[in-house]
């Protein structure tokens, strides 16, 4: 490890007005990392200063650890808070035990290339802790941070527009889902690799109100899911889950999706609706009890799934960053679909434009495969 830069970093820590009790540099030989710990003096809102701790549990003296990689100062140190730091905040990196604050939306190493150097990172950390102290980490200017999922169970693709429009007229929506289970993940519908996927059902609920309370995922069992659904205003989730559990008694799992309206758009999206996806392992519990139970019990295991947008023109428009409005339809007539025209058409389609009218007065000849955007799936070779 380069001691020179570590000493420099420690010097920045000792001279920063918000840091105190800066430890010596301790190098772990085997893992080629260096550790410095320090105390951050966090400004609490006035009413908490006397007790030194906020109602949520942020202290006026917070211990932090900086773990410097061997590549420092090309790469930034990793920052750890105490293990019992409240996890109920947004902008914490998904992790099972350690609390890693996500103090910058980009790569922390960027600060080391700017004139503030370590001070950029330290200022950012102090600001993060200050906002935690006033429970102000969620910035509406930036957007709504989706529910943190420290441990995903798998992926579930569906068309959010379709689901949203159906839920506006019906309180719930039931959908058959194909899935397969690998060692670690559940893959559904178009993601399935296997030829014979299993069948299960998904129940979609819409939350009747705007929910502006951030909460990381703490749902582990069905009873947690029931109480969370009531807290966000979905009253009949329990009844519906029990009903469809019985209806599809032979299926092993049941998917549950809550559509939750947030006060602002989700970070990086054009929608203020967050979809929370859960999977209930309903058969597991029955097996454990070794007898056939009439219904799924509240201690059934529940995990969270990640939603994927399905492949449609709207997604392409969003990703390509074109100025066209996502729901605006334009008919495109492509005159000339040869070597050049086919590629123009292909890129327009990949930018989310449809439908097309393709006009060409020629026919596709074998040698056109060399240049045309479309190619034949097989050709006569020499093998």
């Amino acid at each position, binding site marked *: 490890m380069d001691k020179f830069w570590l000493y420099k970093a420690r010097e920045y820590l000792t001279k920063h007005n918000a840091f105190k009790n800066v430890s010596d540099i301790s190098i772990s030989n085997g893992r080629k990392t260096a550790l410095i710990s320090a105390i951050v003096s966090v400004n609490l809102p*006035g009413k908490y200063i006397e007790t030194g701790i906020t109602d949520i549990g942020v202290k006026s003296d917070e211990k932090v650890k900086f773990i410097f990689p061997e590549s420092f100062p090309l790469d930034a140190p990793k920052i750890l808070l105490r293990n019992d730091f409240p996890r109920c905040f947004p902008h914490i990196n998904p992790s099972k035990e350690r609390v890693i604050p996500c103090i910058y*939306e980009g790569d922390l190493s960027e600060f080391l290339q700017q004139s503030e*150097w370590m001070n950029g990172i330290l*200022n950012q950390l102090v600001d993060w802790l200050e906002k935690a102290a006033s429970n102000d980490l969620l910035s509406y*200017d930036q957007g709504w941070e989706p529910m943190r999922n420290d441990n995903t169970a798998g992926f579930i693709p569906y068309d959010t527009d379709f689901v949203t429009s159906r839920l506006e007229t019906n309180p719930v929506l039931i959908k058959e889902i194909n899935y397969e289970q690998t060692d670690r993940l559940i893959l559904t519908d178009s993601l399935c690799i296997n030829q014979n996927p299993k069948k299960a059902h998904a129940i979609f609920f819409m939350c009747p109100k705007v929910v502006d309370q951030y909460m990381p995922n703490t749902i582990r069992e069905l009873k947690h899911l029931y109480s969370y659904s009531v807290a966000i205003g979905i009253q009949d989730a329990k009844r519906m889950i029990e009903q469809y559990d019985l209806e599809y008694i032979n299926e092993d799992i049941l998917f549950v999706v809550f559509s939750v309206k947030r006060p602002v758009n989700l970070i990086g999206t054009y929608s203020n609706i967050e979809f929370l996806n859960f999977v209930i392992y309903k058969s597991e519990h029955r097996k454990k009890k070794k007898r056939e139970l009439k219904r799924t019990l509240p201690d059934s295991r529940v995990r969270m799934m990640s939603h994927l947008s399905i492949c449609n023109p709207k997604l392409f428009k969003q990703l390509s960053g074109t100025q066209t409005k996502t729901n605006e339809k334009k008919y495109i007539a492509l005159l000339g679909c040869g070597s050049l025209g086919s590629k123009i058409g292909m890129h327009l389609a990949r930018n989310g434009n449809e439908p097309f009218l393709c006009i060409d007065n020629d026919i596709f000849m074998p040698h056109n495969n060399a240049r045309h955007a479309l190619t034949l799936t097989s050709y006569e070779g020499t093998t």
Partner: protein
Amino acid sequence: MASSTISFLPVGEKNGGMTLIKLNNDDIKTSIIIDCSIGDESIANHCDVNQELRGRLPKDSNDRPYVDAFILTHRHEDHLKGFSKHFHTGSLDEYDDDENELKIVIRELWSSHNFWKPASKNYPLCENAKIFNKEMKRRVALFEKNKKIQPEGDRAIIIGKDPDGKTDDLAAINYDIGESFSKINNISLSTKLKGFILGPIEKQKDEDDESFIDQNRQSIVVQLIINQGNFDNKILMGADAECLVWETYWNKYKNAKSIIEYDILYAPHHCSWHSLSYDSQSDCEDPQVCEDAKKALSQNKKGAYIISQSRIIKDDDKNPPSKKAKDEYVNIIGKNFFICTNEYPNEKKPEPIEFNLTNSGPQIKAIKEKSRLAAASYASTMEPSPHG
């Protein structure tokens, strides 16, 4: 969501007043400056208040720095220092975009009705006050001429009723004492801001003319309630109001204390002894605190702060600021909650005192460490980057 902020800037050797409030109301961002005190020298050879102020100001579509409202509490030089040098006066058509340092546009100018009153031997006015009054008259004349709210940059608000009836036809741009408001720059901010105009109060019984027309006596005193989530951050801007005014408030509002309640109190008249007592500190053997005035200044909420925008407070006979007055304030809220601008975070390197007005009340913002490489960097005014 992001909080609103209030910043108290350090002031020069002769005291001064300059407070910047930035309201964060979803899409509408509003900046309000209360008085200005921008000298040519940096404070304690360290804090360049001009840069600290400008770094915090928004810019309009023409790239001009602006404030939505400039509220002048009263016409003393220490509350108007640098006004004509740094703020644009006159029509925006005459704005000079080629100046080295652009002037700050004032979208709406607030003043007590005293701007009509000309300078005289018994009523001297500093140069900046005359320029301010002229600008105020220009703006009010536009309203009188067109009988409608002026365009941005020409707007004006008059506080208090003019004794000669000049405000009678100006109801749309006039707030009387005891009225509340939630508009800034003609935009309603009713979910974010509620202001209550406490002063300048009318002439009291037994009060002589000389006392009544005194500039400090005529100070605009306001309570600003800035909402965040479920919390009302109450800010009591005491201006340079003195003992009689505070004593009067206590007698007027002792049964409606929420009107003089605060999370942050701007200690009146740069922590002057005369805001708490009728007795002279230097002439009187045992100067007594006026209990009613002190009660009016003691309506602090839990975790409230008192800010003395003044020189360093020394234990001497100079007043303001007064050590004796500071002791009274510390007695009200505790020593950790009393801060003098020029002593924060220390006397040698004063920095603006900036609060986030959060959903748990005011929270001091940490001082950003500046770059040690670039000499001219004003990190303390930079907004933090978004969190990931």
